[in-house]
Structures are given as structure tokens and as C-alpha cells.
């Protein structure tokens, strides 16, 4: 934990976060005096999701999302917590940068979506052409901007580098996506917000009538994984599987495709409502997270060609199906429990 000053001299506390967008959102709220944790934001903003998007490619591999679409966590969480907020995108980079400077001058701190490849402080190893990385700009300095990257640290960034990272076209083009809270409700209705968030998550995981989203999406992908070595050849199937494991573990998920983070949210919510049922569900979510971890381990073994008997694509697909079944049961139970909760 480190402290840094914003433009108006208000101290900003940097707290390490697991995921960029939830980290940014909770930091924006904390800065305005509402103490709210990252998992709480994740749950209230209905961050948990599953979507397999074979038609969207990132470095030639399909996108598998374990979270809802970028930007929605902030929007939903801010709405449900009764904050007034601004979300903007720009066509003209110059205008986007000018407005950023203006907002900073009023003493606000601003969340931005940027491209991970062009952020100057990112190490060579972690650079991907991925345009959904969220950061906070604290203030303008002589040589650029002072930035807090919740998954990383407090860093300096040149104005040119930031402009490029904000506006470079790419998959999921950010178009200078910028967001900040104008004012927040100092005593938000946490219970009501939690209920809304949980209901929304249940619908997203169970009710979307398209087979690539939610629980059905996991099953869809599981079948594809099982068939992939026959369809694509072993090498290519391994590449695809490795890409999938990266989405589970690498993209700042707090472990196991956000499932541990959601378990943390359920746990906090259980304390908030004093509900033993929610506490049980938190344990179940944790177990689902362990299941996803097992999947990652088995996948890594397949790719390394170790343990030929037990680590096969069929086994990996089976593990995913187990996850799907358990998650379906989990969200069905959650739906029943949420109905009984009172805001």
C-alpha cells in the first residue's frame, strides 16, 4: 500500500488489486470516501460471466471471456451504488486528451481503458495487443501523467505514450474510453446493490438463449476442446488450449477465471446479510474455482506432453463439463437464495 497525491492534494491510496477494471472502480470509490472492496465491486457490477467468442480473435486465438464485457462492471456498479458518473469515448485523440486534462484539473481522478501493448511501463514480456486494460490517472506532471495501475504499481507515463495507448485501433478498440465518478452516495445501499448484482449474474449465466454464453457456453467450449485434436491437429489444439488457460489464469483474474474473486464476494455478502446459505454458496464457488484450477493443471500437462494416460483432451473437456454442471447448480441455488433476501 502506497500513498500518492491527486491534483487537488487529496491523498490517493494505491492498493494492489487482482483485476484492472474492478481495481480501478473500487479505487475510484475509495478515493471519494466509500470504503468498498474489489470483490464487492465485482459482485455488484455482475462481473462474473462466461462467453466463448470464436469470431473475435486476439493474436490469432479466439477470445474466451470469464467476465462481462469491458466497461460494464464500472457502469453497473456505479449505477447500483447510486453514484453519478461520466463515461465517454472520443473520435478525436486531441479532444480526448484535452478533456482528460480538464477533468484532472478539477481534482478528479480518472479511469481509462488503454492498450496493453503501447503502455510504456509494461515489460516486454507482458505486452499484448489487448485494448482492455484499465488504469487510473492521478494528475498531470511535467513530463506526462502520474498513473496508478491497480494490478501493477504507481508509475509515470509520457503524454505521447498514453495518447497512443488510449487511441490505437485494435481488437476491442477503446476509442479513448474514459470514466470517472462525479459524486458518490456516501452511504450506499449495499444490500440492495448486492441483490441486483446477484440477480443479474444469475440471468447472465443461465438465461441467455445463445449457446456460447453462460453455463451453456462452457459446455459448448468443452465439446470443442474434446474434438479439437482431431479437428485441428495436436499442435494447433495445444495452442488453442494454451490460449484458453491464459484466459483462465493470466489475464488478472485473481485465480481460476474470477471464480475465487466471486467466492470472496459471496463471503462478504454472507456477512452483510448474515445469511448461512450465502456462506455455503461461497464455499461452493471456491470449490468450483479449485475445479477450474485442476483444469489448468491438466491442460498444462497436455501441452507439455506429460502424463499421457491421465492428461488428455477428453479429461480436460470432462473437467470443464464438471465446472459447467456445478456452476449451473450454483446459480440455480443462488437464484432461490436471492429471492429470500431483503434489501
Amino acid at each position, binding site marked *: 500500500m502506497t500513498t500518492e497525491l491527486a491534483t487537488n492534494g487529496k491523498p490517493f491510496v494505491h492498493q*494492489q*488489486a*487482482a483485476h484492472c477494471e474492478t481495481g480501478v472502480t473500487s479505487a475510484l470509490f475509495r478515493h471519494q470516501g466509500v470504503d468498498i472492496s*474489489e*470483490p464487492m465491486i465485482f459482485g455488484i457490477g455482475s462481473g462474473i460471466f462466461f462467453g466463448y467468442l470464436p469470431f473475435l480473435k486476439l*493474436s490469432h486465438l479466439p477470445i474466451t471471456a470469464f467476465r462481462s464485457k469491458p466497461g460494464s462492471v464500472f457502469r453497473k456498479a456505479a449505477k447500483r451504488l447510486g453514484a453519478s458518473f461520466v463515461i465517454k469515448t472520443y473520435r478525436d485523440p486531441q479532444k480526448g486528451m484535452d478533456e482528460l486534462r480538464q477533468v484532472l484539473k478539477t481534482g478528479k481522478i480518472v479511469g481509462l481503458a488503454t492498450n496493453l*501493448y*503501447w503502455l510504456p511501463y509494461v*515489460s*516486454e*514480456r*507482458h*505486452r*499484448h*495487443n489487448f485494448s482492455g486494460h484499465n488504469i487510473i490517472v492521478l494528475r498531470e506532471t511535467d513530463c506526462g501523467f502520474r498513473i496508478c495501475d491497480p*494490478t*501493477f*504499481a504507481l508509475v509515470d507515463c509520457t503524454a505521447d505514450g498514453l495518447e*497512443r495507448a488510449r487511441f*490505437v*485501433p*485494435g*481488437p476491442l478498440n477503446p476509442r479513448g474510453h474514459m470514466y470517472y465518478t462525479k459524486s458518490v452516495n456516501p452511504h450506499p445501499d449495499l444490500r440492495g446493490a448486492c441483490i441486483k448484482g446477484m440477480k443479474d449474474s444469475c440471468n447472465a449465466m443461465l438465461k441467455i438463449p445463445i449457446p456460447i454464453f453462460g453455463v451453456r457456453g462452457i459446455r459448448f467450449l468443452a465439446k470443442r476442446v474434446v474434438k479439437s485434436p482431431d479437428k485441428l491437429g495436436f499442435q494447433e489444439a495445444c*495452442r488453442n488450449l*494454451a*490460449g484458453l*488457460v*491464459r484466459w483462465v*489464469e*493470466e489475464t*488478472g483474474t*485473481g*485465480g*481460476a477465471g474470477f471464480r*475465487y*474473486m466471486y*467466492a*470472496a464476494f459471496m*463471503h*462478504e455478502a454472507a456477512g452483510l446479510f448474515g445469511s448461512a446459505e450465502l456462506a455455503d454458496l461461497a464455499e461452493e464457488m*471456491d470449490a468450483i*474455482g*479449485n475445479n477450474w*484450477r485442476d483444469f*489448468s*493443471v491438466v491442460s*498444462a500437462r497436455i*501441452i*507439455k506432453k506429460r502424463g499421457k494416460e491421465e492428461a488428455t483432451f477428453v479429461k480436460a473437456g470432462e473437467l470443464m463439463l464438471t465446472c459447467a454442471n456445478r456452476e449451473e447448480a450454483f446459480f440455480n441455488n443462488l437464484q432461490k437464495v436471492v429471492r429470500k433476501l431483503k434489501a
Partner: protein
Amino acid sequence: MKINEVPQDDVPDYSQGIKKGNYALDDQGKYVMVPSKGWVIDEQINKMAYDEYQDKVEETRKAVLAGQKSPLAYYMELRQMIPKFLGKTAGIATFRVKRHLRPEIFSKLNDSVLDKYAKALAITREDLKIVPQNSYER
């Protein structure tokens, strides 16, 4: 996941000592953020993706030196772009970008087009015309 189950493997550090956050249960049954030193699985998957990227860049560099592709192709790979996004960044139609990947067409480009590419790829115009003789040092 319990605190002691958070992977703390001894893997090379690429992020200047900044550790990745994991949510885990502590002894009192509360979730806390636990920094992880790294996980062999993560490292293996990351290394695979990174090696693949480097191999691709190196392959393209050799193809350019052999006269099969234009230097533009090399810098496009280096910046992890594809013709569609390079075209959008530079303000040039995708089909033209694809044509410019051929060395005989690239060599006839005038300076204004080269400048657009150089700006989009964040290099100088002179750099854009050549590729390194030796593999890219990192």
C-alpha cells in the same frame, strides 16, 4: 483456495518484483488478497505464447532478408498487429496494406505513405525501410 495453496513457485520475474494478486481464505475464514510469486503453469503458458510471438517475428525478419516480404511485414509482426488494425492506425485501406507487404510494391512507395506507416508503428521513416541484420535483441 487457502492461503498456503496460493502458488509461490520460483519462476523468473518479469514485472520488477510486482506480484500478482490472488484471493484466498485465511485462517479466520476471511478472504484476503495474497500476492503470488508466480506459478509454473502460468509461466509455462506465458512462455509458450511469448516464444511463439518471437518465432514469428524472427521468421518474418528472415523472409524480409530473403526478399519475400517487405520490411513493413516485419514491423507489423513486431507490433503485434494485423493488416486490418495497421490500416486503421495508419489511415490506409486494408487491401493496400496487404499489397504493401510485398517488397516490390513497398519499394515504390512515396514518402507520405511511408510517414503514415512510420507514425503508426512508432519508428522513423529510415528504420521502416530496413530490418535488423541480426535477430532482435531484447
